[in-house]
């Protein structure tokens, strides 16, 4: 198996575990959003089927890294998650912007109050991490025509960039009413720049910047979860009215994706 182990697990086992965790986290927010809209379309159940299979497959592949059946299952679940995420993106775009009153003329309004446009792509990205994990566990050194390390760091950069954009829109909707709402625009945004820098011109300074900013992004994820929890507390009734405020408050688990992407990036930099 490729890479250096950390507490007995190889890099792609870590990637598998982190893929499963991130998928669980994003399904939590997807459930809140789809439940809030009343599951009006059967397609709204799709991410839970695809995501659920991806979680199981990623865990199995990490636990049994040498098993061919686990690798095959992860590959299948990864492709299913990618397809579901892309189709979900099209659904969110169509029903969240095109079909809404005002359509594209009210684009900013739709982006803020409609279905989160980039959220389904997080599932697609988790699927891509699953595919890379399956390839890596099978001993592959290339992914989508790139060296595995570069490919994974590029996926991390894309993931963090998407999370920054989505949080920027939603925090703008919240009028940046707390200074901490600027946090996703600081270290995570700089981490994307550093990752691109390290990919284009690898060097010690670029790598050191990537490491520092990925650690900072990991912490931003936890700070975000704490602040979103505080956000529930600021809603009428706080967590005593937990279900209502979970549905109407800030997305509970979204900041954890920052921590998840950063953790994948750190595992790649340190171990691969």
């Amino acid at each position, binding site marked *: 198996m490729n890479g250096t182990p*950390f*507490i007995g697990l190889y890099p792609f086992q870590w990637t598998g575990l982190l893929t499963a965790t991130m998928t669980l986290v994003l399904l939590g927010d997807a459930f809140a959003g789809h439940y809030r809209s009343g599951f009006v379309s059967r397609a709204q159940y799709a991410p839970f089927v695809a995501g659920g299979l991806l979680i199981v497959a990623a865990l199995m592949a990490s636990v049994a890294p040498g098993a061919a059946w686990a690798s095959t299952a992860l590959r299948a679940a990864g492709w299913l998650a990618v397809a579901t995420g892309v189709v979900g993106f099209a659904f969110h775009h169509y029903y969240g912007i095109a079909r809404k009153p005002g359509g594209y003329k009210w684009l900013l309004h739709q982006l803020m109050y409609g279905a989160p446009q980039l959220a389904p792509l997080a599932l697609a990205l988790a699927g891509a991490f699953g595919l890379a994990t399956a390839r890596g566990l099978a001993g592959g050194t290339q992914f989508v025509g790139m060296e595995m390390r570069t490919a994974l760091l590029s996926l991390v950069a894309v993931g963090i960039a998407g999370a920054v954009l989505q949080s920027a829109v939603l925090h703008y909707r919240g009028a940046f009413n707390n200074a901490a709402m600027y946090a996703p625009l600081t270290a995570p945004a700089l981490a994307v720049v550093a990752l691109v820098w390290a990919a284009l011109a690898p060097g010690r300074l670029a790598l050191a910047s990537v490491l520092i900013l990925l*650690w900072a992004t*990991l*912490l931003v*994820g*936890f*700070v975000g*979860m*704490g*602040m979103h*929890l*505080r956000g*529930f*507390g*600021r809603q009428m009734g*706080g*967590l*005593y009215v*937990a279900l209502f405020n979970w549905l109407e408050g800030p997305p509970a688990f979204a900041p954890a994706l920052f*921590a998840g992407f950063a953790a994948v990036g750190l595992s790649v930099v*340190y171990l691969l």
Partner: protein
Amino acid sequence: MRRPTEEGGTVTNLKRALKLVKFGSPTHPIFVHYTIALTSASLVFDALGFFLEKSSLNAAGLWTLVGSCVMTLATVSTGLTSATRAPVEEGEARSFLRAHMALGLVFYGLLVAMTLWRMSLWQDGHGVSWPYLTALAAVSFVMTAQGYLGGELVYRYGVEVEQSYRELPGRPATSPAPSLVAPQGSSALAHPEQRGEAS
């Protein structure tokens, strides 16, 4: 007068004792002590191991920190459960609760990062260093602030405590509910004597 939860009589047999077992009490205060004790112990063990150059103390520092990281998951989840059961009205107490909730996850993030750092040191066969000890001391300070907020919630505002304890036999239950949690006369939590309903 007996509290509503008091069924009366001395417990004299196991069957009756089992009937009285309830899991309604908050478990957050139990797990909190694991987090505080294990993190503090890790700092002390690692600092002593560093100054006295004893590898056995460093090993204890590593495993207590790993233990803290695992147990704190339970601390955070039971804390969330407690927050969903606390009917705290808007005001000073709820501000404490919000700060406590936010800082809790910030602390957990720092703890996870410190644990990963500590485990990488262990894997590479390195001992702890000044920067590590300083960082762990800073994280312990955050934990202390977090513990203070939690302590104030319980001991100043009575969150999950007031109206939950059982009165001693023969002693009238006259303690008023704290006004910041349940303002007098405005809530069903207020004691009957305060509402003029006592017989």
